[in-house]
């Protein structure tokens, strides 16, 4: 086994005990090599976020081990984890979660300063990264003045500023329109390739499957084989075709997460069909 990259071995997370016990993640094993992009998909409540939290050292597993570049996270004491998170992980969140009081450059620089980098060096590092991400003209802007795509690029720069071995992205495209979503994913792909970072993405977004090296399907806390997937045209949720509610129209079959979405689709099927066609163009 290559010591570099992320290694997850028989990971389990239980909440509660006895009758109220819930197993959120069940005996999951996973390896992510440097420069590899892994997309974890699955229905709501499947354990994706719990897994991501454990990978990022934010939640202790009940059983199993997690190691990153030979550092066994699951063996570390709670008091050591903050420092390990700061230096080894880059977090990218769905809501960007930038610090509203700081400008773009300071938002990135502060993460570097927290590791002991001097202010001047941190600002330079932040400016370099932001320039690489096409934000050189936004360095002194307040986050509220940025578009969603720009905010996410700032968040990516912040995640990268301490040169982490692993980037963890939680629904990074959920609050972005289609083009900004693709742009964000392209960036993550480039970062993995050019900087040799391991990237783990948790998402519902079917559209981003193309940029991942591997797509894993998590359901009921376990990885399962990828099955034929479809996207609900109403709510956009990724679905297993086998388990979905369906409707046929003009010789095509549509898949829905629920009867409610199906009814909504049938009530305005022409509108959905048009937007579907537009999206395909």
């Amino acid at each position, binding site marked *: 086994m290559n010591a570099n990259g992320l290694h997850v071995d028989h990971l389990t997370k239980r909440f509660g005990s006895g009758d109220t016990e819930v197993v*959120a993640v069940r005996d999951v094993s996973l390896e992510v090599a440097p420069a590899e992009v892994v997309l974890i998909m699955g229905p*709501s*409540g499947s*354990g*994706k*976020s*719990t897994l*991501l*939290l454990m990978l*990022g050292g*934010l*939640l202790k597993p009940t059983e199993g081990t997690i190691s990153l570049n030979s550092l066994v996270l699951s063996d570390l004491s709670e008091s050591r*984890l*903050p*420092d*390990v*998170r*700061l*230096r080894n*992980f880059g*977090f990218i*969140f*769905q*809501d960007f*979660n930038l*610090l*509203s*009081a*700081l400008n773009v450059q*300071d938002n990135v620089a*502060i*993460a570097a300063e*927290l590791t002991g980098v001097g202010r001047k060096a941190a600002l330079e590092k932040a400016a370099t990264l932001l320039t690489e991400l096409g934000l050189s003209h936004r360095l002194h802007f307040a986050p509220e003045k940025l578009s969603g795509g720009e905010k996410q690029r700032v968040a990516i720069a912040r995640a990268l500023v301490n040169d982490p071995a692993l980037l963890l992205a*939680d*629904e990074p495209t959920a609050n972005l329109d289609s083009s900004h979503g693709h742009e964000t994913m392209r960036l993550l792909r480039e970062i993995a390739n050019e900087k040799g970072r391991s990237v783990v993405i948790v998402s519902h977004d079917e559209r981003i499957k193309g940029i991942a090296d591997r797509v894993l399907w998590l359901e009921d806390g376990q990885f399962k084989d990828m099955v034929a997937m479809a996207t609900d045209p109403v709510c956009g949720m990724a679905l297993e075709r086998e388990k979905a509610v369906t409707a046929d129209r003009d010789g095509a079959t549509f898949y829905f997460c629920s009867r409610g979405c199906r009814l909504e689709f049938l009530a305005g099927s022409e509108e959905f069909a048009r937007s579907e066609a537009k999206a395909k163009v």
Partner: protein
Amino acid sequence: MFRLAIKNLTQNKTRLIVSVGGLGLALTLVLFFGAIFDGAMSRLTVYIDNAGADVWVSQDGVRTMHMSASFLPASVTDEVERVPGVKEAVPVLYATDMIQANGKEYISYVFGVPDNAPLGRPGGIVEGAAMPGPGEVIIDHSIAASAGLKVGDEVAVLGQQMKIAGFTSDTSSLVSSVSVVRFEDFAKARGGNQAISFVLVKVSPGESPAVVASRISDSVSGVTVQTRQQFASQERKLVKDMSADIINIMNIAGFLTGLAVVALTVYIATIARRKEYGVLKAMGVRNRLLYLVVLTQALLSVALGLAAGVAITLLLSGLIPRFNESMVLTLSFGSLLRVAVVSVFIAGLAALLPARQLAGLEPVAIIRRG
């Protein structure tokens, strides 16, 4: 993180103004009443300080002018004069009385001083005679300004109608003023009683007032002897003790208001950024750094509020005496230091609740869904 604290504090200008303004007004309340009290205290002993006496001799057990009466046989003056080291000994009469003029009444410390006495003469004459003649009185200018009096007008003092011979300045306070009449007039008003109130003593050059006071105490029976500083200090202490409860209540009210304002605004500012603090924790920022951010915000708020409070108090100190001569505001270093120390304490307390919030903040909550 210091930068983050400053930016967090200044980002919402309205919140900052409310916080600093509210605290500033609360601290102004404390500083203002402190300044009024200190101003009154500085005027309280103005006669004792400026009468020219190094030592004050009073009836045995009497250590203050306020809330007490001193009666000494007139012969005590000669006894005191014979004590080695005494250069001058002047008997004075004293009573707290109401000066009545034009339908108004003013509390005054009235002194009866012998003609040509080298000690006990009224100080700070701004108009008229330096010493009152027969049937005359010298009063503070603030009474004249308030009652519309001029030199030559008549006022009632010690139950007698007396003509104003002159005005002094800076001898009145919120609680009282100093008036001087002839010793003989004072004695006559008291029914010709031969008792005196105090003996003012000037010590010979090179003599220590404390040593001479001790000699007088040993040589003359039935008297209490104090240096000028001791007498003034006792006087201030008495009034301070009498006012302490009111002053303390005002201070506590002011400090509690300030504490509530800062605590509330820092708490709201922290809650509003709960998610951001959660992200910082998720990134790996330790609790103690986040506490430092909150504490810095509270300290900066308090520092700005204190500066605002001092500025307002200084402004009032300059303005108020222009409209009321008796109302003197003295912003002492001691008072300022006390308020500053309590303000730092307020900042610490105000940061406690938000710090508790941060301690319980789970970064996990930031990454939603299950």
